[in-house]
């Protein structure tokens, strides 16, 4: 058992994956001697050499586009987009090529590559450093989009992502990079197409992922003091979506709310609310709620506390159900 941060767990996952499979190469901006701006690749270039892990020129489309060619040749690239909104220059490569190559070649060429994107806010970052881009990726067939919320999952899910024959958008909630926990390496959890019930409860299901799992757990703690029993489901994978685990929880509690940092309109929560409602309507005793960021660009560090969903907002939102039935 080792006490590790989530960033440290990701480093261990990369190290173990590179040691296990020489086809795994890692590149992006600053991943070499610096070890990444979040130190996730710390020490790896010294260990594996600059043919396995190297600094690329500063160009995100170039990073992903060259990874397409490397995967075509048989390597398994793990590339880093340095901060969420800097992934947008790579949008065309990801959407038109990474996601489509298997389909375009009738299954002959897969894209076993992992695109690591440090995502979401709450770190006092300036513009371009705090976006939640998941809805763009989950709207794209061919991509698998996952996000860990704790060190053990970070290790397990990154190993699984690198092992996968499909391209994975790997969203790393940077506000949780320094979250520490005891992890038994090599910790392998259930595969990421399964959501985890991280806290059991009877009255409400909170559906959270990445950075908002901690928010949901805090809300559940506070609600427990008032005698309200909240179940928290960590989705882990946003695409595919685990209808089974989520449905079982919602049918048990009959009330569901989804929490994310991204803007509400057209956001990922809309998909969650629609799916949950379509499949469980007659088990629901209240509409599915969304507790999200506002429909504005991600605000400056001085104002992000007003933007981010908090435990209090979650509790206020579920209060609107008014609880006549209890």
């Amino acid at each position, binding site marked *: 058992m080792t006490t590790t941060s989530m960033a440290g767990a990701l480093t261990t996952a990369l190290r173990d994956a590179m040691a296990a499979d020489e086809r795994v*190469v890692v590149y992006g901006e600053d991943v070499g001697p610096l070890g990444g701006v979040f130190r996730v690749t710390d020490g790896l270039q010294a260990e594996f050499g600059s*043919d396995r892990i190297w600094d*690329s*020129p500063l*160009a995100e*489309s*170039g990073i*992903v*586009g*060259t*990874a*397409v*060619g*490397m*995967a*075509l*040749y*048989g*390597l398994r690239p793990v590339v880093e987009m340095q901060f969420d909104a800097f992934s947008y*220059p790579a949008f*065309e*490569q990801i959407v*038109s*090529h990474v996601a489509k*190559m*298997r*389909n*375009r*070649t*009738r*299954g*002959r*060429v*897969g894209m076993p590559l992992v695109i690591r994107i440090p995502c979401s806010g709450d770190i006092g970052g300036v513009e371009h450093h705090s976006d939640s881009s998941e809805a763009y990726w989950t709207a794209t*067939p*061919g991509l*698998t989009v996952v996000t860990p919320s704790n060190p053990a999952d970070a290790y397990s899910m990154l190993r699984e992502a690198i092992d*996968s*024959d*499909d391209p994975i958008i790997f969203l790393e909630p940077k506000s949780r990079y320094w979250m520490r926990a005891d992890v038994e390496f090599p910790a392998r959890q259930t595969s990421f*197409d399964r959501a985890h019930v991280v806290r059991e409860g009877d009255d409400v299901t909170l559906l959270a992922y990445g950075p908002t799992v901690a928010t949901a757990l805090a809300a559940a703690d506070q609600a427990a003091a008032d005698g309200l029993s909240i179940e928290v489901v960590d989705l882990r994978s946003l695409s*595919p*979506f685990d*209808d*089974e685990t989520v449905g079982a929880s919602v049918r048990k509690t009959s009330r569901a709310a989804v929490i994310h940092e991204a803007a509400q309109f057209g956001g990922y929560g809309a998909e969650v609310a629609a799916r949950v409602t379509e499949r469980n309507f007659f088990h629901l005793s209240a509409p599915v709620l969304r507790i999200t960021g506002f429909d504005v660009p991600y605000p400056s560090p001085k104002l992000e506390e007003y933007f981010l969903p908090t435990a209090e907002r979650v509790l206020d939102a579920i209060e609107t159900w008014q609880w006549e039935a209890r």
Partner: protein
Amino acid sequence: MSLNVESSESRTLPTLTPLRLLDNAGHAIRSEDAGGFALPEPEILRDIYRRMVVARRFDVQVTALTRQGRLATYPSAFGQEACEIGAVAALDATDWLFPTYRDSIALLTRGVAPAEILSQFRGDWHSGYDPRAHRIAPLATPLATQALHAVGLGHAARLRRDPIVALTFLGDGATSEGDAHEAFNFAAVWQAPTVFVVQNNQFAISVPLERQTRAATLADKAVGYGMPGYHVDGNDVAAMYAVTRHAVERARNGGGPTLVEGLTYRIEAHTTTDDPTRYRESRDVEHWKRRDPIERLEKYLVSDGLLGDEERSSIADEAEALAADTRRTMNVEADHDPLELFEHVYATRRVALGEQRAFLADERDRAAR
């Protein structure tokens, strides 16, 4: 034909006059007036001639089939045979090609079957051929994106110590795209074994070159990235072959990337749905028709006694046979199974896709009853 590559090569501006080895009348140009490049061996030129004739017949046939409604659209390469085939002939069988949508005849010359080349233009959802079997990336519509794939594949091969070169075609319009810039820069920084062949056919759909760039030549762009650039007469297949072969050998030997611009002209429309009379003068088209790349090589081969009537007749037969084969294949409706839509989205099928597949299967069963 190997050249002494001087360290200053990458800083030398390409010549304003396109580099030629054969003039328009098919006369050989002295090596010292042709950048030091030598005329390829006769056997290579005879082989290239045969491929060009066959390719043109194919191109004309496919254009006709498109007008008959057998294909959704077709971007013709009529007039660009020297760029397409001169460049591809310079590759070894183990090298990779990253084509654009206009490069059907390059695929043909690398041995891909007509039906597989035309898969997407016929309206299918997949690229038809096996990229790894042919070492050709799938045809795709976005511009310049494939240049980065070529750089990545070349660099991966180099990391593996495999002597493989990746050649990618770009159009003149595509050089304005951000991905072209990123590909040039990544290739130069990584010294990736990549050859960029810019087919400057002078129009991006309707937009002429002078509205695309202020650079004196597109080959000039290479200099800023720290790689050599060559401005070549794209209707002189001997020059296209010789320069590309030099670039390929240089890349294979660890010399890094090269940009080769072939100055040519698109005789047909952008695609069969376009009306080129709205944006260019017929006298320009006539001027370029008189600079036909196949006729130029033919004049040279005939006058040097390298091509006789018998061989020409056998090449014509081969071209006709291919055209007939293409007609036959295209006149048979391809068999599409809608349920296959769900098969190749992910390596392992998702629950949700299984549900949607079942839905479509059920809908079709009910319609059939």
